């Protein structure tokens, strides 16, 4: 989707606000949001792509106005509501509806901490051979669909060169809809900064983007 999250190249945001000696978290509630988000993921009612999509479909004014962990909480609330874990009444009241059954959490402390060094690798073995090789020139799609995908606006319709091949990876487009992993070959594509931004960019500089095969066509 051409959403507010697709920020690359947008202008008008001003200088970067850099905080010296920034703490890992600024409020006690921030890591609690992070932990709840990770732990609710163990129910497997959504995945990382669905979760990203739930952030990028927050109202644009919220996307820009809320802090990172506030966005995470907002999107977690949406995800939990859509999956039927909580009702609007429960969200509004902050207390469990009378008579509802208590579930058993899918991850205890040991399971959760044992999961961290493993994570969820996205690479898959597929039969299809990669269409492109290192050095191939490719042109990215000009138009994309309105669901979740990972082709930023600023590289659309541009020609780049394949510099890395990462094997096949789960395709965010279908995964975000819980419609299957549909793994495709994934490449790192290098673009010349001047092709993207014009002469104001240095002729020496490049931008690389990780793109799935279906986002690309051969540049003939």
């Amino acid at each position: 989707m051409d959403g507010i999250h697709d920020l690359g190249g947008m202008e008008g945001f001003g200088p970067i606000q850099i905080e010296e000696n920034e703490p890992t978290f600024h409020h006690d509630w921030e890591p609690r949001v992070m932990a709840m988000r990770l732990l609710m993921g163990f129910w497997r009612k959504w995945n990382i792509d669905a979760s990203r999509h739930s952030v990028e479909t927050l109202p644009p004014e919220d996307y820009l106005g809320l802090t990172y962990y506030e966005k995470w909480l907002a999107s977690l609330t949406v995800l939990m509501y859509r999956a039927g874990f909580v009702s609007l009444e429960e969200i509004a009241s902050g207390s469990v509806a009378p008579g509802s059954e208590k579930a058993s959490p899918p991850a205890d402390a040991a399971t959760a901490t044992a999961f961290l060094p493993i994570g969820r690798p996205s690479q898959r073995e597929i039969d299809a051979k990669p269409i492109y090789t290192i050095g191939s020139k490719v042109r990215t799609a000009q138009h994309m669909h309105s669901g979740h995908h990972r082709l930023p606006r600023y590289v659309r319709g541009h020609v780049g060169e394949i510099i890395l091949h990462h094997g096949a990876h789960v395709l965010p487009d279908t995964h975000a809809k819980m419609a299957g992993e549909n793994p495709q070959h994934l490449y790192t594509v290098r673009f010349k900064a001047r092709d993207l931004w014009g002469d104001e960019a240095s002729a020496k500089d490049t931008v690389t983007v990780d793109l799935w095969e279906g986002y690309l066509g051969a540049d003939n």
Partner: protein
Amino acid sequence: MEPKPPKDNHTHSHTHPHSLLPSDPALRVKAIETLVVDKGLVDPEAIEALIEAYSEQIGPQNGAKVVARSWTDSEYRSKLLDDATAAISELGFSGLQGEHMVAVENTDKIHNVVVCTLCSCYPWPVLGVPPVWYKSAAYRARVVRDPRGVLAEFGVVLDEDAEVRVWDSTAEIRYLVIPKRPQNTDGLSEDELAALVTRDSMIGTGVVTLPERGQE
């Protein structure tokens, strides 16, 4: 605590579930935490365990060890550049948001810098959770378009001759920048070198320097 009446703290007209929550973030989090714990959806001890992991164990001190090793062990450096996931795992760092790692090396001629323009992808096992500026709209919007201007704001001024490579983490590949080793550090141990390596230097928005010392 008195029950809070539902309140729409946003100006948009359509109702998003989160707009039913209290406006104070701390109360909002408390409300959701109460729900997920009372409903048996989340184990409260698991919350504490994850907070401890990301507050104490998982942070840029891990990436610094990887960098210091690559500076002192050329065989390790080759391995890191060839298969970063395996090389980093050798030092005990792996997993969530670092399942597929690529290491890129800064040299006199090449300066690498990492961003995620679409969200805030970041190599958690080696750097921990990202700083606020990395997640900011300003950084995500600007560093792909004006990397030299952004780097200058961080105090990193590059020669015009240098090549800037910006890596936009749009998939599940996570990038670790191997900063240049500062000069006059031949006598330092691996641990002493690791202590010099900053978080920003491993994102590419910083360089590693020796602390300034008085004349001895």
